[in-house]
């Protein structure tokens, strides 16, 4: 169970260009951090480095008290630009699959769908959903299979005002339950959060 995230002097190089170096962050249970910076400053790469998908050029990512392998295997959710959804499958098939894949059950998938007002859409193919609806479907994973650390890449951008507020409440509840959130954003997060700015 992840209770803290620690980045020390992290540096990431992509395609020969040094995106940033010397980035440090301490995040503990119940805290959120908004990751800001201009386009191309490395926000997405930083999130992917925390998830272990990108190898940093220097520095380290640690989850104090937990083996890194274990933390990345079952302790974190990554919601990226792409939602990981197959257009030809129904919303329910995709939600149910990812829920089971992340260690949840069909019951928890139903409950998560309720929380994001997805039930009327579940029988539709993913290709019929709007960008905001798809994002809600992806965000439902967070609730369907609880994991402590949420890595969110511009989670709010396709959502309308009502669902931004709703997701704000969901994030608050997650933090109160001892969760951690690291979110790359352009608009301020609707919750109290630390901030980390990448200069670009």
């Amino acid at each position: 169970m992840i209770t803290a995230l620690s980045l020390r002097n992290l540096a990431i190089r992509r395609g020969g260009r040094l995106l940033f170096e010397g980035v440090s962050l301490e995040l503990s249970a119940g805290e959120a951090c908004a990751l800001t910076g201009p386009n191309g400053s490395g926000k997405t790469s930083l999130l992917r480095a925390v998830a272990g998908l990108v190898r940093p050029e220097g520095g380290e990512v640690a989850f104090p008290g937990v083996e890194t392998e274990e933390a990345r295997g079952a302790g974190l959710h990554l919601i990226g630009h792409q939602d990981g959804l197959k257009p030809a499958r129904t919303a329910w098939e995709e939600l149910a699959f990812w829920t089971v894949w992340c260690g949840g059950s069909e019951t928890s998938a139903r409950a998560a769908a309720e929380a994001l007002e997805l039930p009327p859409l579940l029988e539709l193919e993913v290709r019929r959903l709007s960008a905001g609806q798809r994002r809600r479907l992806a965000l439902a994973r967070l609730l369907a299979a609880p994991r402590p650390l949420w890595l969110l890449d511009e989670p709010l951008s396709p959502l309308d005002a009502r669902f931004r507020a709703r997701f704000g409440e969901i994030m608050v509840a997650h933090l109160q339950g001892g969760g951690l959130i690291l979110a790359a954003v352009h608009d301020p997060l609707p919750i109290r959060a630390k901030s980390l700015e990448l200069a670009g």
Partner: protein
Amino acid sequence: MSRLGALIRRETTLAWGRGGGPLVTVGFYAGVATLLPLAIGPERERLAAVATGAAWVALALASLLSLERLFERDYEDGALDLMTLSETPLELTSAVKCLGQWIATGAPLALAAPVAAIGLGASAALAPLIFACALLGGLAFAFVGGIGAALSLGARRGGLLTAVIVLPLFTPPVIFGGGALDAMASGLPWQAAFALLAAYTAAAVALGPLAMAAACRNALS
């Protein structure tokens, strides 16, 4: 376990729909098998002599068809990221993906192979061995093909690259399977060649997933 069960169901249904699915694969197979006699000439003896070999090579080509999509779509839509973030090792995930590919395209091709070979003039007594070779060889094609598909992730015209990587690796199973069929057709012992085909398949199933997982991790980072 429920996780892998869910994955194999998903992979099989996705492979079933991928690029038109088994109908297109089997259709392509039937097309190649029909074109061959037109080029070779219609004499029965000449056709019968090449029937099993032709059916076998056409099978190898047909199993290339939907390979490029094996990892490509999951890579593009972010699903591969999520598959990596799991307690299930990526090696096992890759193996299950190949298994899904085999169920959805290899098995229908294995059913079509004896029909095509007999249609070309092979003896009906060969049908069970053709089926067995196609089923076993198909498994090798899926796992070896998966390596090519993973290596060409992110490349432009990945499908072509996959074919170029994979076709040389198809050589041993094509030789062993063709050898077994040829031996049986001429009344010689075929077991040795069949055993070699099985050995190659076992190696592909055992080692392929390691290569696929490494190639996927490399493509993601």
